[in-house]
């Protein structure tokens, strides 16, 4: 075989493997969406879940998922941002930094159920936060932090060093340089990172069963007082998210239409994650274009 033939063969082989990966994804998406789409209706999205009769919806679960996502980001984003800035701009190349990095990585590979129980014993019980969205958000912060830190640090790293030098050569403080020059340039990357990590939060179940809980009390969407126990804005109320709902319906669901609820919920979940992904890409591209003056 000549080198050229080998080359062609190898390229074909690589293309073949890529094709398989794409097919796997298409199969997964197809399977989830095709089996779920028929069950999605306006009624399904806007009515509360039912614990034993057919015809329940996922209104509260859907809202809970989104609310939990927002709360988690409010807690984890600033922490991740500060830490990523530390790691990429302040940390020296020494054993301490490498210890911190290892610790963060270990955090990301902990099994969710362990984090869930930790959150349960510490936040739910010890700190008296109870089964609540807040407890869930703190537990999810554990997963989200490593992802966010990694993506923010990566985006900061991708900003050319010449930009840092330009900033400090003008007599700007490091902090001002980071805030005013590096962060804006890293923003598209950071946003993409946030949105992608949002997908993970959205899909997490095991850690939430013990922290945010798995029951969804009836919510009052007209009560805007976040301290009222029935208010949809109350962060101290227990909340079942969409992913937990899928898990519950599949494992212990007694409703006659458990299968279709599960399929419909999975499809909704995937569609939202799809939207997140496309959103991330669109926003990232737009910001990049704006910054480089359309070039």
């Amino acid at each position: 075989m000549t080198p050229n033939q080998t080359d062609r063969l190898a390229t074909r082989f690589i293309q073949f493997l890529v094709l398989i990966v794409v097919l796997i994804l298409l199969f997964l998406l197809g399977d989830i969406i095709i089996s779920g789409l028929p069950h999605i209706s306006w009624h399904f999205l806007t009515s509360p879940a039912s614990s034993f009769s057919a015809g329940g919806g996922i209104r509260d679960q859907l809202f809970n998922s989104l609310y939990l996502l927002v709360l988690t980001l409010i807690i984890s984003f600033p922490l991740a941002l500060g830490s990523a800035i530390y790691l990429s701009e302040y940390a020296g190349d020494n054993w301490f930094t490498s210890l911190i990095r290892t610790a963060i990585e270990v955090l990301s590979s902990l099994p969710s159920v362990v984090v869930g129980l930790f959150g349960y014993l510490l936040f739910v019980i010890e700190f008296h936060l109870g089964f609540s969205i807040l407890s869930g958000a703190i537990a999810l912060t554990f997963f989200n932090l490593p992802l966010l830190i990694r993506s923010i640090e990566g985006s900061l790293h991708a900003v050319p060093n010449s930009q840092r030098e330009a900033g400090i050569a003008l007599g700007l403080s490091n902090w001002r340089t980071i805030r005013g020059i590096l962060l804006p340039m890293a923003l598209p990357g950071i946003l993409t990172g946030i949105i992608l990590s949002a997908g993970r939060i959205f899909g997490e179940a095991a850690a939430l069963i013990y922290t945010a809980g798995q029951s969804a009390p009836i919510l009052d969407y007209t009560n805007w007082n976040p301290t009222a126990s029935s208010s949809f804005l109350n962060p101290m109320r227990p909340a079942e998210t969409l992913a937990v709902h899928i898990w519950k319906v599949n494992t212990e669901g007694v409703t006659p239409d458990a299968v279709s609820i599960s399929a419909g919920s999975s499809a909704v979940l995937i569609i939202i994650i799809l939207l997140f992904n496309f959103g991330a890409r669109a926003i990232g591209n737009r910001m990049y274009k704006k910054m480089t003056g359309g070039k």
Partner: protein
Amino acid sequence: MQAYDLNKNHIVTPPGEIALSTNQLQVNYGNSKQASMVNASLSFPRFQITALIGASGSGKSTYLRSLNRMNDRIATVHGEIMYHNTNINSPKVNVYEVRKHIGMVFQKPNPFAKSITENITFALKAAGITNRQELRQRVETSLKEAALWDEVKDDLNKSALALSGGQQQRLCIARSIAMKPDILLLDEPASALDPISTAKLEVTLKELAKNYTIIIVTHNMQQASRVSSYTAFFHLGHVIEYDQTETIFQTPTIQATHDYVTGNFG
């Protein structure tokens, strides 16, 4: 490469007012024991252009970057850098003030991903200048001084990244001089530019020398001889010779300098 005696040198002290001087400057990168720059003692005359020349790795850029403490995080610098009777190489000195007074322009143009105006006003605002009138005034003056005003005056709100390389570099110069520094350090500012942009830049530099002390690193000997009044020749981390530019290029004292400026080198 011929081995030269690196300890043999010829260094003059220019007459007249000295803007900046270094005494026994030594630079070590990271944890490296091998110094990238040893015992550099030079004095730079006020309102003149001084060129630092030498082959790649001779330490000229390292030296230049030490002058406004840009090497702080990546290298250890020993020795004195005297500016306004202060050793600015001391950790007690406010490094941000140092850099305000000793500005720097880099090899590759590095404008911020902001509009042309914002590129200039960003650091001014950070320094506490908030008066719109004054900001506008400074933008205009500095762009004029950097000979960029005529080309961009209608596009001040456009992204700086849309400018050409030469324009970007002049914007970077404008950005530096808008801070009203004393001294301007330029690290091979023309190396990424085409000949026409380079020529324009050189004219600009000569204009600027009326108001600023300029120290420029270049590997282009013609450029050094065209723009500078003093020239220092660096070799393997040592300053070999420092004298008036004419002397360096026509009657150097040291053999190594002679070989380098005549092209019989390496």
